[in-house]
């Protein structure tokens, strides 16, 4: 097989190259030639094309994401040890602990092969956290699917759930939360977002650097194979490999090996703990192309990589294939020469394959050789960071006004509100997620304080001081569709509120921006608005965005998904023993209070969606100052032992919150409401939380709310003797009946 070397490229300047098939535009290809002063070799072309892809270069989103950094003030930044630009954001939470967390999407692979797509999505985000020097501690999985009863959802959902569970369970990471949302727009494009959180001592933070000429580059973990190569196989088949016959188009599916990853984690942590790595980088999308160019450009010199040393699992792989393989469960470390033996010994202990594949050099070039012939010779920054930047056209969709004008005001109201409660709790978006979450280990590691079905997941970080963190991810794509700016803020507000409801103080934000095609000006408008809304919202709440991920081209044909900026909020709690549970019934006598204000807000509501298939009008109003106040009250209530339960109100409104708090606590309640009962029960006004207060604390708690000008109302009492939810003027709902409705839906659809 003839290999396209730099020498060959120099002598054959006019050779045709399949850059278009690799997704590069004419001007991008021209720029590569300009950077190199010649045509790229096949391996170089493979590197540039994958690193300059939308997924890796953020070419359509970069100009917008800058807004996050631009709006982050020094004060917001004060607790941030690493932010946008690193593998994952890092936050100082006190007691010497640093927390790192990030979300990532694995949408398209999960549609093609649900189990493996979801599994490798979890695997990828866990390696990102590991690459910061942290021990991964928990995962979450925000998911979106087409209609619950669509045949393809039956194919996709069980596979994705099994994949998230199969990989996460085998890694020994508790799953502490996530989302399951159904909407027709996700039918050909389900969303699989995965979040991982990890912890380390502040002094152990590792950033991906390759400084120090003479340092060794070690690839460790799984062998490199032909999986996940996708488009790059055109290089092998159509251009250079004509002697060896064509290699058939390879599936771009990767198969995960969670056992190898578990061992990789323990091995890496031992390496960190022994202080024998200078820098570390996970291999995710774009494999070695990404790892070598990013490590080299984060360092201060050049790098030489002997690519033929990479342990392979398939025969006859070309340099381009080795560089672009997305084989999972691999990491790259930079190690000082005198530590290489120690490094190898740790790897032997864990039975991890480790190979010295390169060296940090004096120059400023990334040089890659293949059996002593130079196949890549590039300035690494041009690959990793100087990709194209697009200013895509932005246009508010022409039908946005009509959408907002089509309010839910004229939709017929229910005749029987009690029946509606039963219908709504059994609707796919509001029904119990137990069928899904029972497939996830939430107990492993023994640090899980709250998990599903709580508003937020919470884990103990320090067994001595009881310090912990809470996390929630949220997004209502219907709200975002109606008004992307407000919708993104509502997502932020909800995640913030969920974290506060658990008793933790929100401190930082991550995101996963799932949108349609960036080539559609309407989608770009949604994206721009959502970024602005989220960033401005973070300023108002005083917590920074520490990282995130963008996934474009989520559409079926020309129909884009609902704009889905999933927002994750991290909170800190100094003592997890004071966490606030979601279910009532913990104390002998409890009063139910509703904090916040209820308005008749039904735009984008679950009621309009489920009962009328309607989407129009405006989403609920958002008041972030109010959310902040509410958060402070919830944390103060937890700190002073004034709350025995708290449950945030979101989709499905008060009715849903009441049913859930009763079912989770296995305790009945009597509720009295005034005003229009339908509005009281089903409006989705933001900024509301239902709390249970021990009778002995009622006065103190309500005095605090009044003093701080947080609207509150007494809406009922907990009744440990009763096994029903009774709503005055409406009637009784036996808990057994509610449970059957709430828990029956997903098993009926997916068992």
């Amino acid at each position: 097989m003839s290999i396209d070397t730099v020498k060959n490229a120099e002598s054959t300047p006019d050779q045709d190259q399949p850059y278009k098939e690799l997704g590069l535009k004419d001007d991008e290809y021209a720029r590569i030639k300009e950077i190199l002063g010649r045509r790229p070799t096949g391996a170089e072309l493979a590197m540039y094309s994958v690193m300059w892809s939308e997924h890796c270069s953020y070419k359509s989103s970069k100009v917008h994401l800058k807004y996050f950094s631009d709006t982050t003030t020094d004060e917001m930044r004060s607790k941030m040890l690493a932010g946008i630009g690193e593998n994952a954001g890092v936050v100082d939470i006190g007691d010497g602990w640093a927390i790192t967390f990030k979300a990532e999407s694995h949408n398209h692979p999960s549609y093609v092969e649900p189990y493996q797509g979801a599994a490798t999505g979890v695997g990828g985000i866990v390696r990102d956290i590991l690459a910061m020097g942290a021990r991964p501690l928990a995962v979450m999985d925000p998911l979106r699917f087409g209609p619950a009863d669509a045949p393809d959802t039956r194919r996709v959902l069980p596979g994705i759930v099994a994949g998230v569970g199969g990989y996460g369970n085998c890694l020994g990471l508790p799953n502490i939360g996530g989302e399951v949302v159904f909407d027709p727009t996700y039918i050909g494009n389900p969303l699989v977002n995965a979040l991982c959180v990890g912890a380390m001592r502040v002094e152990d933070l590792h950033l991906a650097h390759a400084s120090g000429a003479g340092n060794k580059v070690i690839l460790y973990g799984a062998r490199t194979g032909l999986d996940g190569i996708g488009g790059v196989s055109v290089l092998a088949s159509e251009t250079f490999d004509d002697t060896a016959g064509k290699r058939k188009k390879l599936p771009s599916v990767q198969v995960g090996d969670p056992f190898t990853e578990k061992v990789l984690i323990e091995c890496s942590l031992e390496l960190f703990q022994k202080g024998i790595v200078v820098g570390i980088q996970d291999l995710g999308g774009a494999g070695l192309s990404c790892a070598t160019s990013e490590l080299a450009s984060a360092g201060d010199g050049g790098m030489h990589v002997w690519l033929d040393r990479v342990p392979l699992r398939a025969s006859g792989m070309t340099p381009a294939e080795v560089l672009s393989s997305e084989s999972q469960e691999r990491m790259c470390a930079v190690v000082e020469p005198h530590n290489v033996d120690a490094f190898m010994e740790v790897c032997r202990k864990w039975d991890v394959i480790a190979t010295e594949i390169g060296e940090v050099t004096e120059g400023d070039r990334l040089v890659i050789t293949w059996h002593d012939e130079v196949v890549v010779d590039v300035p690494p920054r041009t690959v990793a960071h100087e990709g194209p930047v697009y200013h895509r056209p932005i246009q508010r969709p022409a039908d946005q006004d009509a959408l907002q004008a089509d309010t839910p005001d004229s939709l017929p109201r229910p005749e029987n509100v009690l029946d509606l409660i039963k219908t709504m709790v059994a609707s796919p978006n509001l029904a119990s997620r137990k069928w899904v979450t029972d497939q996830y280990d939430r107990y492993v590691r023994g640090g899980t304080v709250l998990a599903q079905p709580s508003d937020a997941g919470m884990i103990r970080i320090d067994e001595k001081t009881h310090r912990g963190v809470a996390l929630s991810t949220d997004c209502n794509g219907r709200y975002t569709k109606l008004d992307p700016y407000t919708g993104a803020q509502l997502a932020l507000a909800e995640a913030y509120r969920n974290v506060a409801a658990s008793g933790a103080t929100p401190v930082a934000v991550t995101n996963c921006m799932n949108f349609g095609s960036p080539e559609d000006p309407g989608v770009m408008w949604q994206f721009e608005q959502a970024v602005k809304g989220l960033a401005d919202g973070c300023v108002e709440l005083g917590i920074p965005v520490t990282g995130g991920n963008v996934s474009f081209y989520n559409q079926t044909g020309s129909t884009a998904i609902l704009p889905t900026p999933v927002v994750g909020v991290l909170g800190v709690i100094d003592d997890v023993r004071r966490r606030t549970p979601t279910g009532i019934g913990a104390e002998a006598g409890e009063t139910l209070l509703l904090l916040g204000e209820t308005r008749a807000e039904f735009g984008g509501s679950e009621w309009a969606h489920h009962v009328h298939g309607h989407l129009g009008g405006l989403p609920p109003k958002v008041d972030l100052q109010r959310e902040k106040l509410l958060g402070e009250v919830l944390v103060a209530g937890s700190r002073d032992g004034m709350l025995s339960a708290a449950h945030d109100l979101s989709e499905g409104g008060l009715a849903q919150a009441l049913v859930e708090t009763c079912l989770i606590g296995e305790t009945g309640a009597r509720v009295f409401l005034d005003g229009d009962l339908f509005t009281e029960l089903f409006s989705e006004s933001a900024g509301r939380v239902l709390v249970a207060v021990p009778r002995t604390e009622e006065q103190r708690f309500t005095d605090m709310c009044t003093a701080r000008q947080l609207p509150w109302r007494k809406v009922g009492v907990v009744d440990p003797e009763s096994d029903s939810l009774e709503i005055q003027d409406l009637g009784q709902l036996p808990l057994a009946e509610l449970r059957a409705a709430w828990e029956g839906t997903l098993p009926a659809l997916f068992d």
Partner: protein
Amino acid sequence: MARVVVDVMPKPEILDPQGQAVANALPRLGFDGITEVRQGKHFELEVADDVDDATLAKIAETFLANPVIEDWVVRRVDA
């Protein structure tokens, strides 16, 4: 009634962690000389006589195997 066997194997270019685990364990257990192991699924079906080969192929392709990552072989055996 006929007996039909369907063997489903991970495609050669696809990672096979299961086979890998077996291959790695064998030398530790004192069994040498096994250079490669791949692990897949083996189905045995009891099939009515009017089920034809095309149907069997369809069952294997659309249901028993995942063509994205797996190959499969269908064969009728003497019951």
